[in-house]
């Protein structure tokens, strides 16, 4: 079954974009709390435009940043994405040029940041950043491992978000696939409304056709 067909069928039964958005938001909130950081963000790679997009932000800058875009291969987030290597930087203020570029991609000038690629299977989906831990918090390899654990969780959530968006695209589109998607959605709704007798009959008829 093609990816499009799968998306179409899944359209009716997958969680919504909103559900996965909330999951991502919860991940950045927890990451921020665990690391006692000023802010935390998740960026999604938009492959169509080759840009990184703010998908979820906790803490400073959270109001205005979601949806903002910047080129995918410049700056720290870009490097982390392309190189697949996590990076922790302290003393960002030492370099004015770096501070300015970071500010453009974070909404404020952090003193330090941790950035980790979000990898799912062989794909790089985005980047998780944690900004400004307390100044007395010495970084250790144990924290790097913790960051890696969050990154795994965030990568799974991002993958689900992308699937939901593809599914939504199939649902709202035109042509055979969207019809299939709407059928799947209707069946799911009817199941939810306890009218699964009709749905079961319909599925049985489809099975017969197949």
């Amino acid at each position, binding site marked *: 079954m093609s990816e499009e067909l799968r998306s179409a069928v899944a359209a009716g039964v997958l969680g919504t974009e909103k559900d996965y958005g909330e999951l991502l938001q919860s991940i950045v909130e927890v990451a921020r709390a665990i690391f006692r950081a000023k802010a935390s963000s998740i960026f999604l790679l938009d492959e169509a435009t080759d840009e990184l997009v703010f998908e979820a932000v906790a803490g400073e800058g959270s109001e205005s940043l979601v949806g903002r875009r910047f080129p995918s291969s410049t700056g720290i987030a870009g490097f982390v994405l392309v190189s697949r290597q996590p990076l922790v930087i302290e003393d960002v203020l030492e370099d004015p040029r*770096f501070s300015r570029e970071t500010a453009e991609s974070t909404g404020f000038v952090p003193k330090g940041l941790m950035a980790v690629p979000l990898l799912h299977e062989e*794909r790089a989906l985005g980047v998780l950043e944690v900004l400004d831990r307390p100044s007395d918090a010495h970084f250790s*390899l144990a924290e790097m491992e913790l960051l890696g654990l969050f990154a795994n969780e965030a990568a799974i959530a991002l993958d689900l978000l992308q699937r939901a968006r593809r599914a939504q695209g199939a649902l709202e589109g035109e042509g055979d696939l969207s019809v299939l998607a709407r059928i799947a959605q209707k069946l799911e709704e009817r199941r939810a409304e306890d009218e699964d007798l009709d749905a079961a009959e319909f599925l049985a008829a489809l099975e017969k056709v197949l």
Partner: protein
Amino acid sequence: MTEEPLPAWSLPTDAVERIALPEAWPGEVTREWAWGGATGAGVRVCILDSGVEPDHPRVGEVQESVAISLDGDEVMVDKKDTAGDLCGHGTACAGVVRSLAPECELASVRVLGAGFTGSGAVLLEGLRWAVEQGYDVINMSLSTTKQKFATLLHELADTAYFRRTMLVASAHNMPVESYPWRFSSVISVGSHEQEDPFAYYYNPSPPVEFFARGVDVEVAWMGGGRLVCTGNSFATPHIAGIVALMLSKHRELTPFQLKSLLYLTATNVGGGT
């Protein structure tokens, strides 16, 4: 690079002298023998990364700056790349190598900056170009997760190994499959938390073979600046720098011998002596 003919596939008794080592190894290998008094002079180290900022006080002279990009399927090589460093990371790696091997020659091969799309292919072509140039050491603090590049990267890593180019690559500290650090023909490097730049450990449980300084490392950054950074990215150039020292003292060492020498002089093996 001195292109020497490979020995025959078999060794007749009367040909044993043909494969005599240029220099005998001592009974006990020490760090003093391995690189004592060495400066990295005469060794060409390539930084395959985001570019290197020219004339950074912590980096000094960069002999060569090249940028690799793709135009469709065509590989573009800009041999006079003037873009410098696009994020600071390459400059940081170059500065670490310079701090350990102050007189080595540094070359920058930039494989980042042209966008995420196609970045795996650019990485592959950048490595291919660097191997063809015959650098003595290639520092690769980056990797790709794309399975389709794994076989080609593996072939390139083996080619480098047989041509006496030591590929030093950052290991991943996340449970993902990425390349080329997992190949046995490269030296893979993870981080330890100590401050000594010459402390490095052999890991008897590969695929990560060595651990070097990678936590709170003061590194060169863009704009002539410096930052304190953590990551395997910065452990890797520590090993690249030490390998450059070894090669400047023992020009003839093969990658196999370099790995052996690193093992014998590792802090947890014979490095205390």
